């Protein structure tokens, strides 16, 4: 916690070392969160890339309050939502996140994970997005349900419902496979 406060502070002071530390500290965390939400290695990489690029350019506007981890997770979630929305719409508009050109042809070899993680991500991909987001934020991003409710702008009871329903479906989907 204190380290994050200092990192935020140093980052705002223009320290590249702080940016690198933030990147190293939260890269895999964001990658896992993005995978839980989009289950697409290439897209997840783009999302994490996008979060860090925007973050790197935000030292003058970045607010020095609240949790850095939560802030980055929220950025990633917003981008995931945008990407999912964008995939349903064409053409690209100003308001969608601007996907960076992917130079990667073999995204799967670029990301390291075990078989179990891939199976979980596959199972989560079968859930409606709202349920997936609640589960990923709560279990993978360690966000409290009431914070998720605030983020999604819905009552806490709805979030609890989404969480329970989602978990139930995952339990059935993963039963016997792991």
């Amino acid at each position: 916690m204190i380290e994050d406060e200092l990192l935020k502070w140093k980052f705002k002071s223009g320290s590249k070392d702080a940016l690198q530390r933030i990147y190293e500290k939260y890269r895999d965390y964001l990658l896992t969160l993005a995978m839980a939400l989009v289950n697409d290695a290439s897209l997840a990489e783009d999302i994490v890339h996008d979060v860090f690029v925007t973050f790197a350019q935000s030292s003058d506007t970045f607010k020095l309050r609240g949790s850095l981890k939560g802030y980055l997770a929220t950025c990633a979630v917003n981008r995931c939502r945008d990407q999912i929305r964008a995939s349903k719409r064409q053409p690209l508009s100003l308001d969608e996140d601007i996907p960076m050109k992917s130079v990667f042809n073999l995204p799967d070899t670029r990301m390291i994970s075990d078989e179990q993680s891939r199976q979980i991500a596959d199972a989560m991909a079968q859930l409606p997005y709202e349920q997936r987001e609640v589960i990923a934020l709560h279990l993978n991003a360690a966000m409290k349900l009431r914070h998720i409710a605030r983020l999604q702008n819905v009552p806490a009871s709805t979030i609890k419902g989404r969480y329970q329903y989602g978990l139930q479906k995952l339990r059935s989907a993963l039963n016997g496979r792991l």
Partner: protein
Amino acid sequence: MRPADQIENIIKKMSFKAGPEMDKDLWAKTSKARNEFNKTILAPSQHNIGRIIMRSPITKLAIAAVVIIACLIGVSLWRTTGSGIALADVLARIEKIKAFRYKWSMKMTSEDPNKPYNFEGCATELISQEYGSITKSGEPGPNGGESTFEEHYFSPQKKTRIDIWHKQKRYSKAELDDVHVEQIQKSSNNRGDPLAYLKEIVERKYKSLGRATIDGNEVEVFQTTDPNYPTVGFKNPQVDVRIWVDVKTRLPVRYEQKLTEQTGDGNRFSQQIVMYDFQWDVPVDAAEFEPPIPDGYTVTVIKLPPNNEETAIQGLKQCVELFGKYPERITDVYQRVKLLLSEPRGDTLPAERLQEEIKGLTEDEIKNKLLMPIRGLERFGCRLKWDNKDPAYYGKTVTPKDADKVLARWKVSDSEYRVIYGDLHAETVTKEKLAELEKALPK
């Protein structure tokens, strides 16, 4: 079927890591973005504008600490210590001083062997009631010297702020309006938000530790160890704040603040701020407040628009002119447009339009004419949010043709809201009228 907690644990264990190649690419692009950002515009946000002499967070702490001194020496505890020094008298003396200089240093250390951390910073400050302020911050040099990597000059007379970044060999000049200047002065004169924080500090109990000698001068030392002393980034730290006051001049000569925190794993984290070399009532020359810009430094001139409704409307107009529609969100619209400029995708309409618009323009023209209204729009949106004005924005569904639909709104009083409509006319409406208007918005 697995028990709930088991399935939760399984999901928690899901892990994806970047391979070396991905890691290399991700960091390269993040780092590149950072470098490019540093080369281009780095104007202060509205938040920072309000704290001009606190541009650097380090400076912010230092200034806060100076204010702490001022407050500690008297705002609420007008009493003598039995030694003859009344702290309120010290404060009154400081208030009469036209200009003063001081130095400060800060150290932060973590004893955690797994996360060792050391930070050292230092700065010199010159504060003048007449000419403004100068902050030169950097880090301690190897032989007791100091290396300066940032300089900040604020002139209320000229209504400018100039920031110099030596490492990047660049500087920026911000032209301020009266509102910006007032905001800065408010924060630097203890009347802004730091005041509430610092008032709390001066209400703490303190005691005299008796007399001592510094540089041959007799001083009296005061100390507070109140655990409720407000701190930044610390949780229940051990507090030791001391101030040395010259018995003859009744002015501070040294200030020390030491905070120590015991972390959960038994390690200690500490921060020490020392202010020293105070020179009170020094003569200052206007020329000193002229920033010495070294040759070869690149400049960015920043003409910040006023942070008001008119600016926001200009920004919305600019978005329509550039992209044919309103942005879906305004709190990050400038960042997005900048991203669109740096990573243009030729096959999209916004990028095409933007590329067309910037043809033949200089970098300054792009930043100050083309993008500044959008920057102003983003700042206005962020400010409303920070100020808890209950803002809402409906650019996703409202178009420039929707003269009767609410595009944006924010609270101006308990019963009234200001509304900007789709055709960009604005009016103040009651809470009830707003509810009707918002009911009619497309889902």
